[in-house]
């Protein structure tokens, strides 16, 4: 117990430890990474033998977390928003089986796409799975929700989805921690086979149970301390906030609210306070970070039309994260005088580090592909090497989802593209590239797959990479011919050799894997800091 300065991510991690966590399961992804890292680095977690190593991907993470909960213990499963797409198969069906020990799934959404390919709002997936959701407005609430959440999960028998966004994950504030709880003992669900074996006959029963549980979930929301009604005199407008939108509203009313406000932090939507707000106020403004999830749900929620304002009617922008200013404009607040950004200020996009091995890979590849003007296509993937899209390289054509480089190159080759090249990182390859490679092997598709191996998960800060030291054997094991698994060291002095290998493997009409291998210079620096 005590006061600490925590990132939202760290508050979640400490709360889970304090609540008797037995294991955290995750794959790194901004802005969720620091939750698992905190637990990995906590002495207390080591002493309590809390399981915390990185998983190969979000799906394996969630399945293992479900297994731990099956055995009665408390588990946390963390990912960035797009990670939930990878884990969606398990996620949807964990809502059917339910859990025995408590399970909290954390989705760290990234509105405004600070470090992501899209800004999907995973409350949509939470509603899809029909499980209870929590969305904190501040770091203390994030702590409390996790600290108490495992009990809610065990009481209802279902996993919870905790949804945070970038500004919650990566903002620091003071958090008061609470008494430490013991871990659960090993135990098994009494009706386990009637819940976890989702054969159609059982699954139909489980779906009826899930539908019935919605009443319980709504009742829990109605008594939740995270759903709070603030009355105020001016009833022309009522305001609903979710998550951190409440803070931007409060920022605009330092002396107290003028209009009634319903602050929502727990879903499904609580019926009674929404009825109260709708009955009291002429119109409703919905402030939510992400998609207009609540705004859409409110249409018809009470069986009658409501006059709603929010992202759908352009009172707020449809895309991007909220700010105190965008919320102020929606409330008709006057604009404070401000300076413009001087015209001379230029964009400064991120770039591959000086000395990075990916640079050498792209330079050699660009040289080789000059022999195939217009016909060569390079499909890439998610990681630092996506920056090969920018000047001076302009090397790649695509970056879609984890592992898509291999399979897009395959499809393009099948459409007639030659040469069809893929550039993927080592961690992304083991995350979701291996299955695509097996597809290529099974059809002997003519693709050249470059696994640019820096022996780490670099973009998210240098976490362990699941296949380090075993990439060649993995590729051979999947059926790539031994003579077409080629390793090279991406350095300027090796350019001729690198180009030679690339030319040979492009010429080969089958599956080749080229592995340029050199450790990430950032990760090296962290592991071996220069002593001064």
């Amino acid at each position, binding site marked *: 117990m005590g006061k600490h300065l925590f990132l939202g991510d760290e508050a979640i991690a400490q709360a889970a430890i304090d609540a008797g966590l037995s294991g955290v399961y995750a794959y790194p992804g901004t802005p969720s990474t620091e939750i698992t890292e905190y637990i990995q680095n906590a002495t207390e977690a080591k002493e309590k033998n809390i399981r915390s190593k990185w998983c190969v991907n979000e799906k394996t993470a969630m399945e293992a977390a479900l297994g731990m909960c099956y055995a009665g213990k408390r588990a946390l499963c963390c990912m960035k928003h797009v990670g939930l797409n990878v884990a969606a198969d398990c996620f949807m069906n964990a809502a059917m089986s339910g859990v025995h020990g408590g399970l909290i799934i954390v989705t760290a959404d990234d509105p405004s796409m*600070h470090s992501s390919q899209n800004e999907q709002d995973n409350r949509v997936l939470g509603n899809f799975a029909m499980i209870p959701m929590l969305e904190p407005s501040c770091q203390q609430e994030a702590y409390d929700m996790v600290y108490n959440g495992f009990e809610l999960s065990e009481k209802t028998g279902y996993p919870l989805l905790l949804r945070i966004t970038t500004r919650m994950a990566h903002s620091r*504030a003071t958090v008061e921690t609470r008494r430490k709880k013991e871990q659960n003992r090993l135990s098994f669900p009494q009706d386990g086979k009637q819940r976890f074996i989702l054969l159609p006959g059982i699954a139909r029963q489980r779906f009826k149970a899930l539908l019935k549980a919605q009443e319980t979930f709504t009742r829990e929301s109605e008594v939740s301390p995270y759903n709070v009604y603030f009355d105020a005199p001016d009833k022309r407008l009522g305001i609903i906030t979710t998550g951190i939108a409440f803070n*931007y509203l409060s920022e605009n009313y330092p002396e107290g609210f003028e209009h009634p406000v319903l602050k929502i932090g727990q879903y499904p939507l609580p019926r009674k306070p929404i009825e109260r707000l709708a009955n009291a106020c002429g119109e409703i403004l919905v402030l939510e970070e992400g998609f207009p999830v609540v705004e859409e749900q409110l249409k018809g929620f009470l069986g009658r039309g409501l006059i709603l304002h929010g992202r759908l009617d352009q009172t707020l922008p449809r895309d991007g994260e909220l700010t105190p200013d965008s919320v102020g404009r929606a409330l008709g607040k006057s604009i404070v005088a*401000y300076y413009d950004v001087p015209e*001379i200020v230029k964009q400064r996009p991120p770039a591959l*580090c000086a000395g990075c091995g990916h640079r050498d890979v792209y330079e050699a590849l660009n040289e080789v592909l000059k022999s195939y003007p217009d016909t060569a296509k390079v499909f890439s993937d998610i990681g630092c090497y996506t*920056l090969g899209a920018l000047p001076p390289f302009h090397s790649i054509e695509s970056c879609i989802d984890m592992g898509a480089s291999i399979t897009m190159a395959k499809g393009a080759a099948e459409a007639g593209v030659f040469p069809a090249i893929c550039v993927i990182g080592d961690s992304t390859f083991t995350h979701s590239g291996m299955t695509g490679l097996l597809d290529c092997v099974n059809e002997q598709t003519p693709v050249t797959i470059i696994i640019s191996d820096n022996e780490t998960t670099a*973009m998210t800060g240098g976490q362990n990479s699941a296949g380090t030291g075993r990439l060649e054997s993995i590729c051979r094991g999947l059926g790539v011919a031994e003579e077409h698994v080629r390793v090279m060291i991406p350095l300027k002095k090796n350019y001729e050799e690198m180009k030679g290998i690339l030319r040979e493997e492009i010429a080969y009409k089958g599956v080749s894997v080229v592995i340029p291998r050199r450790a990430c210079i950032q990760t090296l620096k962290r592991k071996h800091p220069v002593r001064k």
Partner: protein
Amino acid sequence: MKTDLILAGVGGQGILTIAAIIGQAALLEGLYMKQAEVHGMSQRGGDVQSNLRLSDRPIASDLIPRGQAELILALEPMESLRYLPFLKQDGWVVTHSQPYLNIPNYPAPEQVNEELRKLPRTVALDVEKIAKDLGSAQVANTVMLGAATPFLGIGYHRIENGVERIFRGKGEAIVRLNLQALRAGADAAQAHRNP
């Protein structure tokens, strides 16, 4: 009291260490604090910033509203200008004077200085030079923080406590060097402030 400040720089320059020191000082002072930072993609040599809010009353938003920051503290002069919309009309810009050149179209240094001169209250210092004069370029960020101490609204000795806490694990000599750097920055700011 209330101090909203924006820390700005280029990924890898180390604005988060400065934020951590101020955070420790604020905690010791018993202030409320919120600090939003950016991790991930943008740390690879791109522009980075952190919103830091200190107050003796609870703070609502993690982000600073436009036109309300008392201070922009920047490790790079063009980056100090990027966040001007958040600066109060009479706010301070405290910045390192030497450009970080990793883009081909960086404006002429004179243009950057010209824009800085248009602002009512600025401090521009070559903190790298000051740090090297102290014997280590590594402490440039602490010099920069020192230069901002007159405008933070937290007592100088508290910032010293913050420095001690953050560098304690690195040994007595490192703590002493950083305290010297802090002092050198504060002195230089007094000598070069405009007005």
